[in-house]
């Protein structure tokens, strides 16, 4: 009887061992592409090194742009006044699908952008990231640094059809723009369970030897109230498809929405488009702020009701200018 019991136990162990192994794999759950979509395979660093058709001088400029993209913090206090680098939101060197791959900006611009209500060039689009997400000011239009950024973006777009807009994996979006019922406390609980280990209980990220390792998600050194990711739907889709790092698609859609709402219910530097009145600014840019908590009363606090520009000694970079062709 005892022998049979032991035999059964042994058999159970033998059967369960491979199952335990199978469980160890954490899946990469990303949305499917739709039929008819253009799917891009952005070139890699090795492709660049091995491509004899690219002039060595151009390679230098592309690599400079790549270095700016990967380590944007080297321009802290010049172009960047937050703790973010381009790669903080555009994972995988700006090549990764569902992580705001940057090459579509090359093939779909110039185009009209709702955010600033005029036709934007690629340089202006890059300037937008510096002004809002990086809470800074862009390299001057036409400058060597801007050329390097443009060259890196353009090289990543190699082979992609110009003005094709039906692109698989573009942006972050997969969750749409309509949130479920949002619950701050639930978002907070998810934050502390799944995000705080890297970004900290206080959302201020983690630094080591003077280097940003995990960027702050709110406060003076995070993105400002004008950044695209302050829109809850944008943050929710980014989180769903990119976070926690290495485990995309492991949060449920609802969890992604709730934690996005929690993060974007915290205070951050002022929107560079601030008129001096948060309610007025919200209304003026309602096509954008209808998706944010800016100017809303959350937990008894009116968000964005301040003139704090974070670590940046100015409100609005000069590069943000309207255009008209009348």
């Amino acid at each position: 009887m005892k022998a049979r019991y032991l035999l059964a136990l042994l058999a159970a162990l033998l059967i369960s061992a491979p199952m335990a192994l199978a469980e160890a794999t954490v899946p990469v759950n990303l949305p499917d592409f739709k039929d008819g979509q253009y799917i891009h395979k952005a070139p890699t660093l090795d492709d660049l090194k091995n491509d004899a058709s690219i002039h060595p001088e151009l390679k230098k400029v592309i690599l400079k742009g790549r270095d700016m993209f990967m380590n944007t913090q080297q321009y802290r206090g010049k172009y960047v006044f937050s703790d973010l680098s381009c790669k903080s939101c555009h994972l995988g060197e700006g090549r990764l699908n569902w992580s705001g791959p940057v090459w579509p900006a090359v093939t779909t611009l110039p185009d009209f952008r709702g955010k600033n209500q005029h036709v934007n060039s690629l340089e202006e689009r890059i300037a937008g990231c510096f002004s809002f997400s990086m809470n800074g000011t862009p390299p001057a239009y036409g400058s060597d640094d801007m050329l390097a950024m443009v060259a890196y973006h353009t090289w990543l777009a190699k082979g992609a059809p110009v003005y094709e807009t039906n692109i698989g994996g573009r942006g972050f979006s997969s969750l749409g723009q309509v949130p479920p019922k949002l619950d701050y406390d639930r978002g907070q609980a998810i934050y502390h369970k799944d995000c705080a280990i890297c970004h900290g209980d206080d959302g201020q990220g983690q630094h080591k030897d003077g280097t940003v390792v995990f960027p702050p998600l709110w406060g003076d050194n995070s993105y400002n109230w004008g950044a695209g990711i302050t829109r809850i739907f944008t943050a929710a889709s980014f989180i769903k498809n990119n976070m926690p790092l290495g485990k995309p698609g492991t949060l449920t859609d609802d969890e992604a929405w709730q934690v996005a709402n929690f993060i974007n219910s915290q205070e951050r530097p002022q929107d560079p488009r601030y008129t001096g009145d948060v309610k007025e600014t919200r209304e003026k840019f309602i096509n954008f702020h209808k998706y944010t908590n800016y100017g809303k009363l959350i937990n008894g606090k009116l968000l964005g009701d301040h003139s704090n520009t974070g670590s940046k000694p100015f409100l609005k970079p000069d590069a943000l200018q309207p255009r008209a062709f009348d």
Partner: protein
Amino acid sequence: MTHFLFRLFVALGVAMMATAAYSQTDVGEGEKLTRQGDGSGAPCIACHGADGGGNEVGGFPRLAGLNAGYLAKQMFDYNAGLRISAIMQPNVDNLTEQQIQNIAAYYASLPAPPSKTTGTPPGAQVALGEKLTKEGDWDNYIPPCAACHGPGDRGVGSAFPALAGQHPLYIRQQLEAWKTGQRKNDPNQLMAAVAGRMSAEQIAAVAAYLGSLPASAK
């Protein structure tokens, strides 16, 4: 004068508070345990070395200079069955919580000794390891090691241990243990996710490169 006295008073107060916080762990007691053991198992130094530098051939990790919270968690995890090792478990199973904290604090206080890793790995292997630790392999959804383990892979906080200067055999064994599910005490499966996607070649390359890195900055 009164200003000076006030500052002296504040300084004394701060010093006393700092001492109070420090006395929660006893580094001297920790050191004693590592050398003498607790009477029921082998002393730590038997495998991890008198300087906490570990041993490449045996796959015994360097402990010196690692984060105290990380080290303590590993010992608690052996005792809770969350991390499995036939060698470690019987040697830490009779330690009290305080003893574990003392040992962890002692090893964290030690300077990381120079890597004793012998032999030079092939250049191509180190190059691949460097690429993976700094850039990752995103086409296979492998983020770079440094994204979590910090600049120079010298570790970040208690959740992301220092890898720089760690013995390659140990790193390789651990990555393989995560890959197969044998080790699973990482927070939120963050390491299992990455290790599970790494090829044997990538694991060997990362281990060789990390082992070649200096354990401390500059």
